């Protein structure tokens, strides 16, 4: 076993530190501080805004009409959100909007859309990808949102790709 599971070697008290160990530690710190990671937001991580007509099923939401779903992002300040991928089936009807939004909870200023896209054409299971390159700011709430407008729509969840944790 070696790093990162156990020590590569134990350096004795008066021995020089091997250069290979110093290089490996530098690489591990770099990878540790800046991993690119996917964070899933399954269907059960979402909640309807203002009620709506969404129904949480077995890993997906279905709808009776316009419904807004929101999912929290709890990544710490300084995290870089590279992409947000939403999985859904428009079912050939209505509009599915997806958003990354933020709001400053200290000032209470209006909600800001960081990134958004709309699908008005799809009829099979697919994904929509936002590439916001957004770094979570101090004092901001950040969340994902989707608006499904038709009873044919199905929403499965999302994932966030983030680094600089």
């Amino acid at each position, binding site marked *: 076993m070696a790093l990162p599971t156990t020590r590569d070697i134990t350096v004795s008290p008066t021995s*020089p530190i091997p250069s290979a160990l110093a290089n490996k530690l*530098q690489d591990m710190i770099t990878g540790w501080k800046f991993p690119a990671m996917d964070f899933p937001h399954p269907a059960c991580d979402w909640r309807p805004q*203002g009620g709506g007509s969404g129904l949480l099923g077995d890993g997906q939401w279905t709808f009776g009409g316009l419904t807004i779903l929101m999912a929290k992002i709890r990544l710490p300040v300084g995290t870089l959100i590279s992409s947000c991928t939403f999985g859904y089936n428009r079912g050939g009807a209505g509009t599915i909007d997806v958003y990354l939004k933020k709001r400053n909870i200290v000032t209470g200023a209006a909600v800001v859309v960081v990134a958004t896209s709309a699908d008005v054409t799809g009829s099979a299971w697919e994904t929509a990808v936002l590439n916001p390159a957004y770094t979570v700011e101090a004092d901001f709430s950040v969340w994902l949102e989707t608006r499904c407008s038709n009873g044919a729509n199905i929403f499965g969840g999302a994932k966030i790709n983030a680094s600089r944790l």
Partner: protein
Amino acid sequence: MPLPLTRDHTAAAAAAVRANTWNKLQDMVVGAAMPTLDFPHPACDFEIGAGANPPLLGDGQWTVPVAPANVIQSSIVLAPGTRIVSVKFGYNRAGAGTLLFRLRKRDFAGGAAANIDTVSVVAGAAWATVSLITPYVVEPDMQVLIDVTLDNVAHIFGGAIVTVDRMVL
């Protein structure tokens, strides 16, 4: 680019390791174990507790259709040993009623619940923040949560920020 983006320098085989690189590595390990981090708890991170008057989740904030509203709660999912140093809440009292903000815990094993820190807001008519600042180290077998009570239809709640300065991964 230096650490932590890339290596500071590549130590050649059989060469001595530079002291400044070695010291920086130590500092970064300390910083990784003891960072000060802010974790946002957006409005949509809160769940509605039991009662007859559920508050209403809007576009990044909670409002109160019928007062007093059921309490709303948000879980703090941090490993035991993590130290919470503050919880900041964003709200608008709008000149009426009382808002109550709490940091609470409940023992899985014994089932007992207790306040860690609380604050009531009875003044203010504009958007503002209030913070709980009693440090708390997350204990084993303990659920930790924040909750908010809104008792007037004028109230708006926007979310919270949990700050930690000792992170256990």
